């Protein structure tokens, strides 16, 4: 009912701001343009679209154009998506990155798929923005495609990290056999909380370096089952570094019950001292109890 006045207000505000009244400061004019764009969200999409398009084509600041892109992402018309895609492929710098973000927010499957072409020719910032757009759109399949077809380790690592943030455990599992990529995958397993994949690697002693990375990853996942696994690893290995890694991971996972159990079971005074120090560092209640027992036992 009040749409016509609103549209008139928006058009007038943009016109007035565009022609710039002499006594008005540039900042005020900028704020007026932004307020006008904000008001556009109340207009019917087919009336708002040409105004936003005009703003994008006009001589406005990047800030105003960025706000216009956001309004565009909220317009449920195919033309809006087309403009976003054109901006993402033809512009550079902040506006291009912002248009890519808006495509993620819009969530249109076809426009999201078209980002892949921009990804292939884009620089690092553009690639990163596109991964973020897929994150926003929750499109783990698209990120998986990028990881699976990555041409170098950095690209693979970025995509895998994004899958970890997205909690895309199925997609990460499909990438498990890629050569020379275990470290990135371990980080992603840890971020996504994929206990099972980490457990397999953490109990495999064929590559101690990789085993220790996986043990560290387990500590980030945390939880009771992680504590139990770390105990098993500690007890079953003869490798001092792996032992140390397991016990430090218990500290990170705040598993003082396990450290206490190892302390009580140990017959080695050096090991007992190290474990007690660890309990003290963990601020565990058990540490005071042990200190009390130890001092009391000597009387």
């Amino acid at each position: 009912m009040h749409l016509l006045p609103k549209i008139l207000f928006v058009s007038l505000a943009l016109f007035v701001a565009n022609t710039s009244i002499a006594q008005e400061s540039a900042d005020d004019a900028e704020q007026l343009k932004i307020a006008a764009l904000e008001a556009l969200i109340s207009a019917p999409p087919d009336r708002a679209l040409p105004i936003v398009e005009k703003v994008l084509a006009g001589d406005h600041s990047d800030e105003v154009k960025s706000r216009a892109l956001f309004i565009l992402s909220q317009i449920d018309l195919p033309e809006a998506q087309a403009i976003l895609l054109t901006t993402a492929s033809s512009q550079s710098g902040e506006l291009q990155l912002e248009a890519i973000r808006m495509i993620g927010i819009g969530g249109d499957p076809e426009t999201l798929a078209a980002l892949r072409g921009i990804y292939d020719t884009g620089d690092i910032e553009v690639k990163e923005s596109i991964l973020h757009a897929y994150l926003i759109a929750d499109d783990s399949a698209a990120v998986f495609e990028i990881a699976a077809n990555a041409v170098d380790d950095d690209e693979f690592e970025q995509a895998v990290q994004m899958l970890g943030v997205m909690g895309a455990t199925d997609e990460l599992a499909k990438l498990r056999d890629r050569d020379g990529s275990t470290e990135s995958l371990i980080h992603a397993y840890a971020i996504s909380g994929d206990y099972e994949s980490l457990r397999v690697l953490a109990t495999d002693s064929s590559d101690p370096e990789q085993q220790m990375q996986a043990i560290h990853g387990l500590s980030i996942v945390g939880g009771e089952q992680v504590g139990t696994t770390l105990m098993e690893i500690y007890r079953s290995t003869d490798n001092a570094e792996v032992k140390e890694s397991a016990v430090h991971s218990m500290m990170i996972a705040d598993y003082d019950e396990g450290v206490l159990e190892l302390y009580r079971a140990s017959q080695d005074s050096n090991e007992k001292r190290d474990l007690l120090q660890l309990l003290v560092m963990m601020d565990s209640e058990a540490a005071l109890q042990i200190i009390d027992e130890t001092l009391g036992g000597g009387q």
Partner: protein
Amino acid sequence: MINNDTLTLYYYNDGLTDDERNHVESALRSDTNLAARYGALSRQLSGWNDPETPAAPPHLLARWHDSIDRAAQSENNAPEIEKTGPFQFFSFAWGGALAATLALGVALGMFFSGNDVIPIPDGIPVEVTQSTAVPASFTRGLQVHLRESQWELASLPAEASTDNAQLLMQIIEQNRMFERAAKQNNSPNVARLLRAFEPILMRLANEDIAPEDAEALRAQLAFELNVMLTKLARDPSKEAHTT
């Protein structure tokens, strides 16, 4: 030492055993600093009382408490936030965090009052409405969350600080909860928007951010939050049909 969470529970007569209440009562009688702290807290909390806010059922309240504990734990484990000295009750972050937590309670209370249960982080079991419509209670709760976020962001001091970072981490935690809730409540558009806010909030939480960059990011968030609120107010039930 009796912390502010305990005092808050004492104030609301909620979540403490008889022994714990007695312990607080006795400490308030003997410790003047604690009594002063409790007085200030009571005034703050009474100012926030909203008689129209529906109370959440006890089992949901318990989940809420649990989610706060988890959020606090996760914040404490966050490596990028440097911990500072003793806890300062009157610090901006605490005031803001408490306001944020209570706002979240109000928002979740509104949501729960619609007989829906949203997923709480870390895999707590949930019941989700199977209907394709967006529950009105979810929309109302989301509106409260967005308005509170808007208010908190506008109130942030210009200079980056640990206090700012802590408050922003709180907002991020809540944002994640509502993002999951949106996903479960046929609101993928809302979920995408909330996901898009997070990198900006993370950048704002960075203590090394230049004031002019922080200002630009806050202006961007203010604009996007305003647009989102206007859209929600205009057509709260449209979401289910737009994907």
